[in-house]
């Protein structure tokens, strides 16, 4: 169980999708590991990569940078990328930085997979 200052990174395969769930707090001391784990996920080249933020309570700009880097890697191999279920504070950060115009955001990981699966077929 993560506390507010810890970060757990969980991965789950759902058909063509790889879901990476971030649990806890993506603060500066965790972002190197976070970025490595996101790189690992991209190297698997899933058709759909969803970053589930539904259990994330904090993210610093290093974490935002990790999301952007993952998005670019997925774009490069022509996969689909999405962010799922950011809480209000993290959603506000995405909007302030205008990353919501770059990164597709869905209300849940399931919605993201369902939507991107339709557009992939």
């Amino acid at each position, binding site marked *: 169980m993560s506390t507010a200052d810890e970060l757990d990174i969980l991965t789950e395969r759902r058909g063509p999708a790889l879901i990476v769930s971030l649990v806890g707090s993506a*603060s500066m001391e965790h972002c190197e590991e976070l970025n490595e784990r996101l790189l690992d996920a991209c190297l698997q080249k899933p058709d759909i990569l969803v970053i589930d933020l539904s259990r994330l309570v904090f993210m610093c700009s*290093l974490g935002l*940078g990790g999301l952007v880097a993952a998005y670019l890697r997925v774009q490069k191999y022509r996969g689909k990328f999405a962010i799922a279920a950011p809480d209000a504070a993290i959603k506000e950060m995405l909007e*302030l*930085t205008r990353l919501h115009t770059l990164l597709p955001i869905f209300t849940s990981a399931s919605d993201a997979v369902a939507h991107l699966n339709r557009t992939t077929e």
Partner: protein
Amino acid sequence: MRAANRSDLLMDQPLPHNEPGFREVRVSSTYRDAKLPEKDILKEVEQYGYDEDATFAIKLALEEAMTNAVKHGNRNDPSKCVIVRYAVDDHRVVICIRDQGTGFTPEAVPDPTEPDRLMLPSGRGIMLMKAYMDEVEYRHDGTEVYLVKRRK
């Protein structure tokens, strides 16, 4: 008594940051050590009853300022230190963070929300500090950042 003294100090002074009432912490330039002052500062913020939004803003600004000090200021050199001075009272939270780098020109940092910069993985720290704090001021050629969050 403690809060009243600090309040007078913080509200009446032209924002110096090395007088009594401010605490000072020195940490080495690693992300792990840079996290240490945050726990103490947020504990005081909680004790003074700042709300969830203010606490998130202070945590975020601290993380961004410490990241910049460690990564860009001290170039991840653990032999260099970051000095944090802070004071919390009923009215506001004041934090000064100084690194041992050569400084930079804040005005020269490009806007990360410009369309041609959106896809860059870095460069959002200063913008986020400015968005979430009431005052963000760089001093001493950019080697020190001064942050203020007022109670709403």
